[in-house]
């Protein structure tokens, strides 16, 4: 009996163990079938060492296909701790070839990590030399570095890229998503200590190159504008000169200059003459930020008399003034309890509205502003798009600084009417002027025209909003006529170009604080006056000596037009 009892128990024992095996088997099936993907992925992450391959960044090309931003091959030098056989030789060689301090290299060579980067953006020749030493544990990977063939050309527009080829400034930032591409990877299987496992080989994920950006900028117009700006800056000992040239019909910008420009291939170089001794990193960065600043977009100023274009357009549109409306200027005007002087203190006497514009007569424009009243004036200010940003495709556009409507009295209205007591950016002024003379369509100023995939050639045309009818076509035509008169007979005489019909307006505004003796002289010109194909503005900041816009800024635009009108294929009127 006893014997049979334990036999039964032995059989039970067997089945108990089978049951236990089944339990762990279920667990195994769960792990190896259901959870297999999860753990495989985790394991692969653990085993693979990634090395990124930079994607070639898209190029930036001007309207004629000239390459303005390109890539050149450079090398990244790294060390792999586990593979280094002679650390001292490696340290010595790398610090010599890369011109780095011994301590810097030593720290990285002796750091226990799977892969340590010593230096990136090493010249290809240097990289090739290092590769020829053929030292164990030293890796030289080729990648791309941004290269700007024209150094300073349109530096504040194009911008530059950082060590990882990411856009830092200008169009490089704005179009980052198109330009950057998708980096590739070299995946190597390693053991737990980071040693490569040869039998597994390498897996490469090829990088996808960034797309090429075609911009409306014209290298020749830009270069010539820069030359003119530098000349003006030198002769007038000015603090800075800005020039923008744009197509008033569609907002394509041909040139945007802010001298002094900086070298895009060495953007972190502090200019000579600046004391770098004793500057903190923050202060150095502030200096650099100042150098990189695009005054046409990032800074606001009081536009002065060029803003009379806006006041005139609002007055004509609203019907409170016509070209033949007659005025009388005694040299001043009393607004509420304030006496505001005309720049011609003896007064312009009797004049119609066209002549008042030609004379840039402040009392007349104050009168027009007052006839409109705060509400209407403010309405036009907004209708013309002056309250919003222009939407230009560059980062950091500054907003308009304007009185609040409820704080605006007649005195404020009077000063705004001739372009003072508020601030806008140069691009805002140019865009608004362009929109008034182009038939009344508020265009968006821009550089980006199209994005082209260099691989398959697909093009993406970039489009920009246009707001039609901000002023009527009639008002626009009247404004073109009046502004042509300003150049042909009035204060903008220095903007005349032989054989072309030019329209324009000058401005001379004193910078705050008043009485500092510092001025901003500017001139807005467009051509041909009857069918504008180009509009340009020149702004000279703080010129020495003669500071009248009509005398110093208008000639800059004249020289520009003399050269670029034939270049753009715009015919002289007598040849049509």
């Amino acid at each position, binding site marked *: 009996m*006893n014997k049979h009892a334990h*036999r039964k128990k032995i059989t039970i024992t*067997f089945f108990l*163990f089978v049951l236990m095996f089944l339990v762990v088997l279920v667990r195994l099936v769960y*792990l*190896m079938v259901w959870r297999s993907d999860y753990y495989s992925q985790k*394991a692969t992450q653990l085993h693979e060492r990634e090395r990124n391959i930079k994607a070639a960044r898209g190029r930036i090309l001007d309207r004629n296909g000239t390459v303005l931003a390109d890539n050149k091959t450079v090398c990244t030098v790294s060390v792999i701790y586990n593979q280094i056989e002679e650390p001292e030789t490696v340290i010595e060689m790398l610090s010599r070839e890369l011109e780095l301090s011994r301590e810097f290299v030593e720290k990285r060579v002796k750091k226990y990590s799977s892969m340590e980067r010593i230096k990136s953006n090493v010249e290809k020749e240097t990289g090739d030399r290092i590769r020829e030493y053929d030292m164990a544990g030293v890796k030289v990977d080729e990648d791309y570095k941004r290269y700007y063939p024209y150094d300073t050309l349109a530096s504040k527009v194009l911008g530059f890229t950082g060590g990882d080829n990411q856009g830092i400034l200008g169009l490089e930032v704005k179009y980052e998503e198109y330009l950057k591409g998708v980096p590739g990877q070299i995946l190597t299987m390693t*053991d737990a200590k980071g040693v490569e496992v040869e039998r597994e080989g390498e897996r490469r994920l090829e990088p996808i190159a960034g797309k090429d950006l075609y911009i409306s900028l014209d290298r020749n117009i830009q270069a010539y504008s820069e030359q003119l700006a530098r000349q003006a800056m030198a002769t007038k000992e000015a603090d800075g000169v800005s020039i923008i040239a744009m197509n008033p019909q569609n907002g394509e910008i041909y040139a945007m200059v802010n001298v002094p420009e900086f070298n895009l291939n060495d953007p972190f170089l502090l200019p000579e003459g600046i004391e770098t001794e004793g500057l903190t990193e923050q202060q150095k960065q502030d200096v650099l930020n100042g150098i990189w600043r695009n005054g046409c977009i990032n800074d606001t100023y009081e536009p002065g008399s060029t803003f009379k274009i806006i006041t005139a357009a609002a007055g004509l549109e609203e019907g409170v003034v016509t070209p033949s409306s007659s005025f009388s200027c005694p040299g001043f005007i009393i607004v509420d309890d304030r006496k505001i002087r005309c720049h011609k203190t003896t007064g312009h006497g009797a004049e119609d509205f066209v002549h008042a514009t030609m004379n840039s007569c402040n009392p007349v424009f104050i009168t027009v502003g007052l006839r409109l009243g705060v509400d209407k004036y403010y309405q036009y200010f907004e209708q013309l798009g002056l309250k919003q940003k222009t939407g230009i495709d560059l980062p950091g556009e500054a907003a308009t600084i304007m009185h609040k409507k409820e704080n605006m009295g007649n005195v404020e209205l009077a000063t705004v009417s001739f372009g003072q007591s508020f601030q806008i950016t140069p691009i805002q002024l140019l865009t608004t002027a362009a929109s008034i003379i182009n038939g009344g369509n508020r265009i968006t100023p821009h550089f980006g025209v199209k994005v082209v995939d260099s691989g398959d050639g697909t093009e993406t045309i970039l489009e920009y909003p246009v707001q039609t009818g901000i002023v009527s076509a009639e008002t626009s035509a009247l404004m073109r006529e009046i502004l042509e008169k300003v150049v042909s007979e009035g204060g903008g005489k220095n903007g005349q170009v032989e054989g072309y019909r030019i329209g324009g307006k000058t401005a001379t505004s004193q910078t705050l604080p008043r009485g500092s003796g510092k001025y901003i002289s500017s001139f807005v010109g467009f051509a041909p006056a009857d069918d504008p194909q180009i509009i340009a503005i020149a702004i000279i900041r703080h010129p020495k000596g003669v500071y009248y816009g009509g005398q110093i800024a208008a000639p800059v635009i004249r020289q520009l037009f003399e050269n670029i009108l034939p270049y753009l294929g715009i015919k002289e009127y007598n040849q049509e």
Partner: protein
Amino acid sequence: MATSVKRRRKEQTEYFFDYSLLFVVLFLLGFGLIMIYSASSYCATEDFGDPAHYLKKQLVASILGLIAMIFVANIPYHFWKMFYGVGYIVAAILICLVKTPLGVKSHGATRWIGIPGTGFNLQPAEVAKICVILFLSVMVCKLGKKIKTWGGFFFMVLSPLPIAGLIYVLTKNLSSALIIMGIAVLMVFVASPDYKKFIVMGTAVVAIGSIAVYLMATGVITSFRSDRITAWLNPESDAQDKGFQTLQALYAIGSGGVWGKGLGQSMQKLSFIPESQNDMIFSIICEELGLFGAIAIMLMFILLIWRMTVIANNAPDLFGAMLVVGVIGHIAIQAVLNVAVVTNTIPNTGISLPFISYGGSSVIFLLIEIGLVLSVAKRIQLKEM
């Protein structure tokens, strides 16, 4: 008389030798050597400059073990009956020797004693297991019907406790202590005709265990083992320390999938799993041979246990049956627990996979146990089968 003589002759010619058991053991042994080479060669090359370093040592132990097995298989098992007391004492003394200068320390625990002049190390816990099996088998026979009583039960369970206690206290080897106690419980379960008390106690142990785990997991009880419980329930929470080995094993098992990466293709053995030839070797089997290979190995173990079950059921006497039951317990408990640990079904504790994991003492004494089983098998009268 004539018939009696004839019968005796027949016994001589048709004595039973369990070839299938031997085949399974040899298969597991050979497979184990292949897997030890596969799992250890990379690290062995790095550490010793010889990819076959561990393979060679294990091969020597396996050959020694096989010689011992053949030797034991050819000695009638009743011969060993007289050594039950000596075995018990020798096991206790050997365990105590780890605290003498003979003790060999490794991985923070002294679990081995060096055999002077040979360069080989012996793990007393492995000796203790076979000694306890012998001791308890003899005790079952001595107790006879008293085994049914509570006294008999407690004697069976408490008598190996000093050995298990010494293993736990002196060598910090909880798993070996638990295996010895597991063997004891299994043997008393088989020997006793009673069911009720085992069901009640089994349920109680499971319940108490679950509550303890729950309390440790929720942080009500904190003992030095509770972080192991946390690492068990969520190995990814402590991936760098306590959960490290478990997580690495799970990566290996999971990445094996159904068909595995192929023999020799494991990535995890490249020092991701420390000493993957030891307790975690099953995870490398899973990674290289997949679910398919894992099931094959588990089937081999079930077949092994099945053969031994048949032998135990047909053993000529209770002593022989109990010896085989003890060996079944030893091998089955270790195999199941090892797979359970590797798959993180239970908390991590060091249990080797019989015949496959690297470890000389383990394989030698396992083969001696198989020798005992074969010896029992030889005494089976075929007529009675």
